């Protein structure tokens, strides 16, 4: 397969070899952690900025205008300028907030994307943590984010924030069920929770096509529930500008607000990345059953490029939702989850299990 030359495993192995030969095991581990940590920090920072820029451009595209154009060529430096501005802003802390919780909330919210991003395989061999309950780890850790949101709403000592935080908390907790269950549907098909295994199994074709009906249903449910998880799109009642000013992060300014903002975009990336891994093959190129020549051509594009193409396609889709639809009311959001998505999910799991048992998939 041609993509072996894009495999990052030799690179990471050689670094590991080089370090462990010359240094003690403890020091090797520490240095490796530091390298990974710094790389992920850089990635998140840069990707966050890129996503904010992409959102503004996509939004402008839907609204028939151009978006940022002046700061840098095609407005590329706009987000950097915005973040420098946010960093320089005064951190206004209202007098009667619960100081410890108020300061803790943004940190909890930003930790979640860091944790989940460690199990995502960007390319063959480029994955920080690869244990055999990878999918389970992602669903478990992403639930921690709701604590940050609730804390922010409560500690702000502001009725609007409290309403926003409560709404958001209810919404996130509900939609985690749907997200988890649609991932489980695909785990049933794959037979393993290990993320790299799931990607490998899609070598003969992506799960979306292999699993036809239940996989497509699970994909739709996952994308809808994923946008609701990240408080985006038609489900952004918690931060609805036209109703409650800014919801649970009204009282935050400067870098703390930047944390919430950044966390929302990285969560968007996580949702899109999980969708790509589980439904669209991760870094696996588009292979078609037995057409070897076609597959070889597809393999010439590196896995890293495939991964990001797919992630951007899903992110574009999710952004499209936000700029087209009006907002749902909180009780409609919860109705959608508990009365519609949950039964569909349960039925879908049953369907997928039956299919796997009878071997009715490719």
């Amino acid at each position: 397969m041609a993509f072996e030359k894009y495999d990052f495993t030799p690179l990471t192995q050689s670094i590991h070899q080089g370090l462990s030969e010359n240094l003690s095991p403890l020091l090797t581990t520490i240095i490796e952690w530091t390298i990974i940590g710094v790389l992920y920090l850089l990635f998140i920072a840069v990707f966050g900025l890129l996503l904010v820029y992409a959102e503004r451009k996509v939004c402008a595209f839907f609204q028939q205008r151009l978006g940022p154009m002046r700061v840098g060529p095609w407005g590329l430096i706009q987000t950097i300028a915005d973040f420098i501005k946010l960093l320089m802003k005064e951190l206004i802390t209202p007098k009667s907030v619960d100081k410890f919780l108020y300061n803790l909330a943004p940190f909890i919210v930003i930790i979640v994307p860091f944790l989940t991003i460690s199990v995502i395989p960007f390319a063959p061999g480029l994955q920080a943590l690869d244990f055999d309950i990878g999918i389970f780890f992602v669903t478990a850790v992403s639930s921690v984010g709701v604590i940050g949101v609730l804390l922010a709403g409560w500690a702000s000592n502001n009725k609007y924030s409290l309403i926003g935080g409560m709404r958001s908390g209810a919404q996130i907790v509900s939609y985690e069920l749907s997200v988890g269950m649609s991932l489980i549907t695909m785990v049933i098909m794959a037979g393993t929770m290990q993320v790299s295994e799931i990607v490998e199994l899609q070598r003969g074709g992506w799960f979306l096509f292999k699993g036809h009906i239940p996989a497509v249903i699970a994909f739709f449910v996952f994308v809808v529930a994923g946008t609701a998880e990240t408080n985006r799109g038609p489900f952004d009642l918690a931060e609805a500008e036209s109703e409650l000013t800014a919801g649970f992060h009204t009282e935050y300014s400067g870098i703390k607000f930047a944390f919430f903002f950044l966390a929302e975009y990285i969560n968007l990336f996580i949702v899109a990345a999980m969708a790509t891994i589980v439904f669209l093959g991760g870094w696996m190129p588009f292979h078609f059953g037995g057409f070897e020549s076609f597959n070889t051509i597809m393999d010439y594009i590196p896995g890293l490029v495939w991964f990001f193409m797919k992630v951007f396609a899903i992110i574009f889709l999710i952004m499209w939702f936000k700029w087209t639809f009006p907002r749902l009311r909180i009780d409609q959001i919860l109705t959608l989850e508990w009365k519609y998505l949950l039964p569909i999910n349960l039925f879908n799991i049953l369907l997928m299990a039956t299919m796997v048992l009878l071997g009715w998939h490719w």
Partner: protein
Amino acid sequence: MAEIIEKIITTDEIKTDEYLVNMGPQHPSTHGVLRLLLKLEGEIVHNVEPHVGYIHSGIEKMTEALSYPQIPHLTDRMDYLSSHMNNEAVSLLVENALQVEVPERVKYIRTIFDELQRLASHQLWWCASGMDLGALTAFFYGLRDREDILDIFEETCGARLTLNYSVPGGVMFDIHPNFQRKVKAFIKKFRKILPEYDKLLTGNIIFQNRTRGVGILTKEDAIAYGVTGPTGRASGFSCDVRKHHPYSAYPYIKFDEKLGSDGDSFMRWKLRMDEMWESLNIIEQLIDNIPEGDYAVKMKGVIKLPEGEYYQRVETARGEFGVYVVSDGKKNPYRVKFRSPGFSNLFAINHIAKGWKIADLVAIMATFDLVIPDIDR
């Protein structure tokens, strides 16, 4: 034990606290400086108390020191989205009181401007309401199309919003030579764009869930609270002044008065969209037939209305606008009262918003289409 337990408290007596939230004067969706004091229990609204007066400018008092030709220029600022209709109300009142007959050309021009401004006002309502409900893209689409109308206004009147165009006796300037051509081009373009608005929002299931059945205003309540305009017509209250007491060129044209029956937010929305279609039809009937003639009649230098009282009503984009003048024969009026549609419409909200959630209150406010300077004057 009997002495200690005085009575058994049932759950009815343990009331959860209601709390007061201010949808303050600065709020993205109250469309102006309006303060709504909400008494909430969780998400449910128990009471809405509007506090107005943040933009009260004392226009009625000011008119007591002005002469009659000066008054129309103040009326622009009240309901600025229907400024020409406000101007027209005062001009018609003075003309009818002095029994001055304006040329036909003036009547046609005034009506065309009325309908163009109604279109512009409804477009702004559509885009702002879409934004309130969360469809942020709607804002840009509506404003982009509204620019054409505003350019037409600017060519003839010099202003885009507060037109200052009708005065007692006629209009201030003749229409620009490009006027007819541009209006016809605009109508053609807008007929294709209006179905897009419907596709974007009116047919969307999320939108329908937000507005169907929300905030029902019955016909009796509409009449009792004096709610006019598209808001009142959606409840079945037939109150279109253009039909019942026609003025200017309205007697010469045929158009339908659209009435709804449900009185919910969706009906109010749909009715305004239908009114936009009707306005297009009206303009089409008039634009080709503008008679030649003067654009104003020469009025006396100092206008004095005969002693007595006069009441003139017009149909603005929001409802019935009335001007009541008490004259004592001098050149300044003794008392001018403006009956603004927003004033009556606003206070019906408390009645219909009880029991709904905050998000529904936003939907109700959006479909009521209030302009706050109209309320405060």
